[in-house]
């Protein structure tokens, strides 16, 4: 249907894949992320213990490198005697789920707003740009905390609240990219053969924003993971006994004097996950070209 004048098409996919495999960020970050995703998906096969099963007789057992450790809890147990390895493994599900969920909600809002602002311009652009500016002025941590506190803490509320806050970068990037595409020949051509505005917008422009949107999405996944951890740490995110890494850090804080590994382990997991997502995002930005920069 499209006239395909200077449109980046699928023939580029192979070249892009080859470039991706030569990029350190994509290989290292993507590889790490793949491992973590697999761990999250196959959590029951990897950790045999129930992450929420308490055993007060076996509380605060140390991990394997310390004295007094036992083989069946090789990363020890927490203050309620729950297996720490199982909690860490299942915690990956919470982090990844929140990250992807928030990026999906935020992406849907941001990309839609950005498309309309960039394509129609004029007063539509003015109104949407104003909404973006207003959103940026809100202190995100405090607003999220307040919204979760008032809306009732649950995983769904958390994802919705963060998604409603983290759409601004999607909107800004989509708007700029749409503006630069709106006057290109293939868009004009599509319009000339009588395609409706909405069809042009979603049929011609949107597919060409894929790279840019994916790069922003990785950024926001990382952002959402860190925010979820911070909110859970402050007691206004994921509810116990759900194993969230941020919540585990908060619970370990009581024992910071004698058992700092309770904090060190979930925090390290967070670092590795966010690092992996960021490396992948940086790598993708480098290979997908200037539109996203």
């Amino acid at each position, binding site marked *: 249907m499209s006239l395909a004048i200077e449109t980046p098409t699928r023939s580029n996919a192979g070249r892009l894949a080859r470039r991706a495999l030569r990029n350190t960020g994509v290989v290292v970050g993507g590889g790490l992320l793949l491992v973590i995703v697999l761990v999250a998906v196959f959590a029951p096969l990897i950790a045999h213990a129930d992450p929420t099963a308490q055993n007060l007789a076996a509380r605060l057992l140390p991990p394997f490198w310390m004295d007094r450790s036992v083989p069946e809890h090789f990363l020890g147990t927490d203050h309620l005697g729950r297996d720490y390895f199982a909690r860490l493994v299942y915690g990956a599900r919470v982090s990844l789920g929140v990250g992807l969920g928030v990026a999906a909600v935020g992406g849907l809002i941001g990309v839609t707003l950005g498309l309309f602002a960039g394509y129609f311009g004029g007063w539509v652009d003015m109104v949407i740009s104003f909404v973006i500016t207003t959103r940026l002025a809100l202190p995100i941590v405090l607003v999220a905390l307040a919204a979760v506190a008032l809306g009732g803490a649950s995983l769904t509320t958390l994802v919705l609240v963060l998604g409603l806050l983290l759409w601004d970068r999607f909107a800004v990037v989509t708007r700029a990219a749409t503006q630069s595409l709106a006057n290109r020949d293939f868009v004009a051509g599509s319009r000339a053969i009588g395609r409706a505005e909405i069809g042009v917008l979603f049929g011609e422009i949107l597919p060409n924003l894929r790279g840019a949107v994916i790069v922003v999405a990785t950024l926001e996944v990382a952002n959402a993971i860190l925010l979820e951890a911070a909110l859970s740490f402050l007691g206004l995110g994921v509810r116990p006994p759900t194993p969230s890494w941020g919540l585990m850090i908060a619970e370990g804080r009581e024992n910071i004097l004698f058992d700092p590994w309770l904090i060190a382990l979930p925090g390290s997991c967070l670092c590795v996950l966010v*690092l992996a997502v960021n490396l992948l995002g940086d790598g993708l930005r480098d290979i997908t070209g200037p539109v996203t920069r």
Partner: protein
Amino acid sequence: MLGFVVRRLTVALLVAVAVSWLSFGLIFMAGDPAIAIAGSGGSAADAAAVREAYGFDRPIVVQYLDWVTGVLGGDLGRSVYFNMPVSEIVAARVKVTLLLGFLSFALALLVAVPLGVVAAMFRNSIVDRLALGFAVLGQAIPSFWLGLMLIVVFGVWYGIVPISGTDTWRGYILPVLVLSYYAMPAMMRVTRSGMIDVLDADYVRTARAKGLPGWLVITRHALRNAVLPLISLSAVQLGVLLSGSIVIESVFAVNGMGRLAWESLLRSDLPVVQAIILILALIYVALTTLSDVINALLDPRIRGRRA
């Protein structure tokens, strides 16, 4: 220039109004704020008493206008928990947060700019790679976790700094380090990429060709132009630091505005939360407006654009 400033101020004013709607409206998210304030242990009579005392039974527009009139006169409402004017409570706590924010910002700037400049001058060298690695790590480490780990190492194991509170200046060391490392990576990257763009520009090559010493080319010609995006980002980062201090203040038990906001949320002291959201948002609006005006002063090309 005057036209630019007027346009920019108008936008800022409109954003401020929108932000005031949002911070006012947020407490109605749960439905009835009277029930939220009365708490889970409160009876229907308690809720009714709160409703009457705070005038929640009036039309919402009337309540908003009443609140805004108060805010414009410096009255931010009354705290439910302390039974004191919110403005007094916030005023007692805001200084610590501002001090923490500005110290962290200054340190971040002091590290980010030289590091970014050097990284750009020696692109792909060891220094550049180390600087980028330092930045990538800073963006991946959750700041509250870094704070706790530093408390473990320097507070518990070595006992060099207090493990909580800011009674002495030593109490500021760790929170400032953590917050500045949180703000630094983005500033370093912007400085670096700005410098890389500028170093390739014709006028820098001309400056070099006419025999100007290297450091003068950097400071007088390159940095001056590379600094524009950094000014915009600085305003954003200062806002980020102030709102990010909510988490850090509770890690280090710093008695600032952020910790006050968190504690107020836990005890459903909604007027305080409302006021702090508004204050933080207005500070952000003021900072970004100021940075836009500074950028327009430095770069005539910006003045012509729509605000």
